[in-house]
């Protein structure tokens, strides 16, 4: 009985979390535009989706920014983590504080401060500024994913490589990187999803001419979201779900191997 109550409780909480998502997905198959009435099953919104220029543009911006920001942040963050890890205590603490600032700052303050930077330097806001902002908030997450792997590493691994004749760059690519790879991948994925989902910071660092999906939804929110948007988000949700399954499958395999 006690067990049943616990499971029941969890089921209710999860139900609460999934209701809006289920509603979104169901509405994407609704033949009508109504948000409340079921007017029959149809795939019209999915068909229309690919001819909706605004949505397709926003999708392009969202995905390219997420990919580019994840790549840049992963390179910048991985190098930084390796460097910070090798530092002495004082500078290390300083760098970690620097890393924690953007993570503790509310998104809106980060967005506003970056907007001020671009306004102050008279850099017109658009694609590039949004990309720069995304790299900025992604990188600390990469560092925090890579750091634990570096700490787990035998602290003499790098020295062992040099001892066996490896130059620092050879040791970096053949010893350090392979060992911290799981952390680098986690960091890259985290950066990608954070960037994909960001609204607040993008909103302040782009212009109305360059929209990602979030800012597009925001601009449409008052007029009412088109069901095509529901169709798109249902598709993206499924895509991410599949991605998660693949990653899990792979990491499970890796665990089995050992």
């Amino acid at each position, binding site marked *: 009985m006690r067990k049943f109550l616990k499971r029941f409780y969890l089921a209710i909480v999860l139900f609460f979390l999934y209701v809006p998502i289920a509603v979104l997905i169901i509405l994407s198959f609704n033949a009508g535009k109504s948000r409340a009435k079921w007017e029959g099953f149809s795939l019209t919104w999915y068909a229309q989706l690919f001819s909706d220029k605004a949505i397709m543009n926003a999708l392009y911006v969202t995905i390219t920014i997420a990919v580019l920001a994840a790549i840049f942040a992963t390179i910048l963050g991985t190098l930084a983590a390796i460097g910070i890890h090798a530092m002495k205590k004082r500078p290390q603490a300083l760098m970690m504080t620097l890393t924690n600032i953007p993570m503790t700052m509310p998104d809106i303050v980060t967005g506003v401060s970056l907007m001020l930077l671009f306004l102050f330097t008279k850099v017109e806001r658009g694609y590039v500024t949004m990309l720069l902002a995304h790299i900025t908030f992604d990188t600390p997450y990469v560092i925090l994913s890579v750091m634990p792997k570096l700490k787990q590493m*035998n602290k*003499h*691994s790098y*020295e*062992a*490589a*040099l*001892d*066996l*004749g*490896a*130059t620092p760059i*050879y040791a970096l690519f*053949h*010893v350090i990187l*392979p*060992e911290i*790879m799981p952390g680098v991948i986690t960091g890259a994925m985290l950066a990608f999803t954070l960037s994909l989902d960001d609204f607040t910071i993008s909103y302040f660092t782009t212009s109305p001419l360059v929209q990602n999906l979030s800012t597009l939804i925001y601009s449409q929110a008052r007029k009412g979201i088109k069901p095509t948007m529901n169709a798109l988000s249902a598709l993206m949700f499924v895509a991410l779900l599949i991605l998660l399954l693949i990653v899990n499958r792979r990491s499970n395999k890796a665990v089995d191997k*050992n």
Partner: protein
Amino acid sequence: MSEEPRMIHLENISKEYNGVTVLSDINLYIRKKEFVTLLGPSGCGKTTTLRIIGGFEYPSTGRVVFDGKDITTLPPYKRRVNTVFQKYALFPHLNVQDNIAFGLKIKKMSRGEISRRVDKMLDLVNLNGYGKRSVESLSGGQQQRIAIARALVNEPEVLLLDEPLGALDLKLRKEMQLELKSMQQRLGITFLYVTHDQEEALTMSDTIVVMNAGHILQIGTPKKIYDEPKSAFVARFIGESNIIRGTMVRDELVHFSDMDFACVDSGFGENVPVDVVIRPEDLMIVGEDIGQLTGVVKSVLFKGVHYEMMIDTGDFTWKVHSTTMQPAGSRVGLSVVPFNIHIMRPTKEDSAK
């Protein structure tokens, strides 16, 4: 050993970290084919010395000379030495074979040559057929052997070993000690070995360098260091010993425990305070009436080959090793021959309590 040429020479090496001196004025040379052990408690600077030779740290002052060339600031990958690290530092993402081949691949050796040499090394460390195994699937002892193979395959002129047996259990450690020693003699490579285990040092080394607090206290053969420790610290660190405050009355006569004892040391001056060191096995238990000292047996412990007894003579409790047991509470006499009384000047940092 003295006929072999000098391989490594450390000249006036000092090392500071943030104003803390960890090595001060180290002078040491290592000859070809010699087995040298740096021995000392943790924090004495032995590992730092090794790391300076390996090229992982640079000395604050002084020079490292290798085969007549100054290599003080040469990076590790350009030095003809290899290291066996504490806890091995095997690369977990590579299998046994690739770990051993790591250095050879960097040298762009042909594939056939690499696999020939790897097999030869696996043979040397008795791990034939383990090439494809993942290093994490190996036991501590096996990982240890792979770490040694990985270093030796590069045919270094000097092999540096940083407490390589520290993580192994006692039985395995004894086996590996003998194996390492025979390997060193067979291959004719210079070994520089770091340990805090005095027994390990005594078993394996040609030369022992005793260090403490960044200084070298004594350099010598194991026998010389055991029999003639230069200071109370060395005596206490190497083997077990009784150390008591005494006064040198004059040459060859020392006073301690309210008694005058004949000894063989001289040159200390007259009525000078000294430390007196007597090894537990050098104290003989004799009849109460004929002993130089008399005392009560406080405790008895069986140590396998001998008994260890703590004998209280009123002003001092002596540790005595003997093959015959005296029951606790009995009164016994103790005597010691002059040759076994070691006199040393008390030093500030390591005077006896």
